[in-house]
């Protein structure tokens, strides 16, 4: 009798848990690229008057930007803060917090460090439950496109990216042609390689991807895992696109050591464990200072990962969020370049690390369609060439 009672209690707890969850669950309609217009069921905790901003594609004058900024700052001060979900290092976020606070007293930029895998579920769960903490998210563009498709982002086109006469390395608003709730790109991260200069003498330094297929490189190469999404996935996609699948076979036969932790990979090169680390960015050098290491690119071009910034739907501080997003296309560009986060999109923005200066480089960009098909297929197709 008591056993039955206990079983009933246990089953009830499970049922109540599931029911509570099921009842509170909403069903945001997913949207497809270019037609995304659905709204996730979210409850902004403190809606504030939103300053109007120019629509994407519209060019504005510097004085219009100043007016928008003044109005938005007034509204943002009432909100007090903006919460920034980011994977960036403190070396990048701390200067950004300080500079933003100086320019906009009374609007605090609060950094929330996230891991890429936990970002999606966290944003989704916050929005579905109406308990939003985050306002703005910066991450890789492919993740942001996924968020947009899922209806997680709100529309905002930063006026600073639309000021007439300002030159950009590439159009930061290019995704507006594909997604209604698009994410502006504020930075790109080049994906080249880091070599150990003690072990790789100048005459051995690879100029082409195919140089790595020569016998000298056998057992000396470590790479980010190309079987999962990321820079290595894109790099190997481009290797096949340029040289065909045979190139995978030749490079794969070198006994590539796969790694998923970029920092450990960079350190393995710095200590001399491996001679070269593929699909690493210049910013990885910041964690291995004063070591015999060097960032290199290949003659075929530079694979880049685009870093975007998105306004979260249901943001508790919408005006402060817009102010911050806009800031990322003003002084934020200089901070991005000077702290080594990535290459800024605005031409002439401050870049302290020469490797981040992409002037004159051939950038290998992929379209969303390629990301969904060719790049995704490459993750599976390459597995047989990596087998030990």
């Amino acid at each position, binding site marked *: 009798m*008591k*056993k039955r009672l206990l079983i009933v*209690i*246990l089953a009830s*707890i*499970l049922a109540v*848990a*599931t029911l*509570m*969850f099921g009842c*509170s*669950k*909403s*069903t945001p*309609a*997913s949207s497809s690229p270019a037609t995304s217009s659905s709204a996730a069921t979210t409850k902004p905790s403190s809606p504030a008057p939103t300053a109007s901003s120019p629509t994407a594609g519209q060019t504005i004058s510097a004085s219009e930007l100043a007016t928008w900024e003044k109005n938005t700052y007034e509204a943002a001060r009432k909100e007090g803060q903006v*919460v920034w979900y980011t*994977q*960036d*290092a*403190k*070396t990048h976020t*701390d200067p950004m917090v300080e500079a933003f606070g100086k320019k906009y007293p009374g609007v605090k930029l*609060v*950094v929330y*460090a996230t*891991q*890429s*895998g*936990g970002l999606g*579920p*966290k944003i989704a*769960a*916050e929005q*579905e*439950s109406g*308990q939003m*903490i985050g306002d703005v998210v910066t991450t890789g563009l492919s993740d942001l496109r*996924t968020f947009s498709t*899922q209806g997680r982002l709100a529309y905002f086109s930063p006026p600073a990216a639309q000021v007439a006469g300002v030159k950009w390395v590439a159009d930061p608003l290019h995704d507006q042609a594909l997604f209604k709730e698009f994410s502006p790109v504020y930075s790109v991260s080049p994906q080249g390689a880091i070599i150990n200069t003690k072990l790789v003498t100048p005459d051995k330094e690879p100029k082409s991807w195919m140089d790595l297929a020569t016998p000298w490189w056998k057992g000396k190469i*470590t790479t980010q895992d190309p079987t*999962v999404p990321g820079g290595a996935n894109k790099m190997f996609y481009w290797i096949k696109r340029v040289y065909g699948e045979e190139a995978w076979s030749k490079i794969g036969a070198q006994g590539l*050591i*796969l790694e*998923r*932790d970029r*920092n*450990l990979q*960079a*350190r*393995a090169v*710095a*200590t*001399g*464990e491996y001679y070269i680390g593929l699909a690493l960015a210049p910013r*990885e050098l910041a*964690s*291995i200072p*004063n*070591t015999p290491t060097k960032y290199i690119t290949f003659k075929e071009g530079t694979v880049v990962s685009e870093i975007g910034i998105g306004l979260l739907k249901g943001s508790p501080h919408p005006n402060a969020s817009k102010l911050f997003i806009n800031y990322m296309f003003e002084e934020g560009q200089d901070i991005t370049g000077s702290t080594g986060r990535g290459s800024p999109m605005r031409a002439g923005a401050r870049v302290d690390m020469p490797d981040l200066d992409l002037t004159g480089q051939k950038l290998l960009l992929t379209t969303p369609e390629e990301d969904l098909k060719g790049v995704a297929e490459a993750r599976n197709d390459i597995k047989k060439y990596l087998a030990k």
Partner: protein
Amino acid sequence: MSIKNRVNRSSILMACLFLVVGFMILYPVGMVFFGSVWSSMPGASGHLSPRGYIEAFGNPSTYSLLWTTFWLATVRTVISVAIAISLAWIMARTNVRGKRILEISLLFTFFVPLLPRILAWIVLLSPRTGLLNVFLADILPFHLPPLNVFSYGGIILVSILVWVPVLYIFIAPAFKSMDASLEEAAKASGASMWSTVTRINLPLLAPAILATTALGFVRSMDSFVVEAMLGIRADIYVLTTKVYNYINLTEPPNYPAAMALSVTMLVITFFIVFFQWKLLGGKEYTTVTGKGYRPQVTKLGWGRWIAFAYVLTFLVVSTFLPLGVLIWGSFMKVVGVFSDSMYTFSHYQRAFSASGLWLAMKNTVLMSTAVATAGMVLCSLVAYTVVKTRVSGRRVLDFVVWIPWAVPSIVMALGFLWAYLFLPLPFRIYGTLLLMILALTTTGLPLGTRTMTSTIVQISNELEESAKASGATWLRTFTIIMVPLLSRGLVSGWILLFAFAVKDLSTVILLYSPESTVMSTQVWDWWRTGFLEEAIVLGLLEAVLIAICFVAATMLGERVGPQMSKEQRPTPKALLQ
């Protein structure tokens, strides 16, 4: 006191515990179950579907991962438990040389955080540049294949070194509390030391050993960080790596398959716990009776030096060597990279001037104290109910408290996130320290409950019965008889939960907000962005924080501890034995 009243009180206690523990554990785990049969992420639109199970088990690689996970867990558990038992026996029942310093050192081993320890082993045992490999190549007159930390051997070695101190702390109280009269009787009957150990000690300690073995096995199955950092380079994957891939490295994330594998691990855990019950059967394992006891010390003669060397070797390999590398590395510009001007203080300057460090320290102390205190109250009641009552359903309760460790921590974190975000409350709990305390108390239940169970199981009912016969109420009996006798277990459990809460990252990673940031998230923040030396500095600071609280707790434990004779009263250093 009538039997009927006692049964009723036990039933009420059981019902209350079921409600509390059931809610804390089954609600978030219910989310995991739900996620395994929901076609998309809980919270997103979808429908009931077996897709997750079909995808997970339709993939042939899942079976090889299951096998790898199983044999790795078995090997690591067997070796870890064997070493933990040998250490516990030496420290509790022998006159080993240098006992006091060894005791303190063994406890300290537990406090060193995991991530920096793994990094230390990478620095020591990387095949080409590892310090040990370079050293061995220099001194050995013959060529030896390099030791490689990125291998099955490396994973097993590091896991064992990390887990033995935990298992030691878990099993040592049972050795310390064992009544010596049985051993004396065996000796008086002419039994050899070996015969006494195998026929008296081991059977008496069977519950603690089995519980420790089960704990070790379940945690080995759930282990992720060691495998992720050391396994992937060597093409070694386990079940938790697969779960991680489904959630983090698949576009879009495949939650149903990840949850289906997690439910599978839960089922495996159920069988492990069930097997443990069956092995124990209904046997009595009381070793602390009303007749009084004193621990007997086996005189090892010259063997005490061998025992000393054995414990010292373990300490050097598990702690001193990696810790030395860490402290040394914290002053190097880049750990493991040697040059003429390789030393710097900048990591300390940067770590200590980081924004939010002091808030994180304050939050950590508050949160960990609350987790340890609330956890021990709950764990003591659960352990008491399971061991000292005959109320129906106690075994189900015993199983339920295992669950948080049966589910991979990355999945359990999602379970907490989903559970508490959708919980209709009149106040906001998401993003607060309160939620983190609740989540960590839940995930700490297996640890705290096992610690208390292995202590309570050895206390005879006759002590309670004598008190009751003298007219003491249940509450008074519990406070004047049980609590003093359990003080060692309580203090050791408190310290374990405190340290667990300070070091935990996976549980809180999705739950914290900028206001509730803690030290583990700060360590992780430095770590993931490449500043490993700063992460090491903060990791060492974490260890110091735990050590300070350990000293404070043991001093407090001494003041409020049992009114025993001087010989019986545990010394501060022995409190965690």
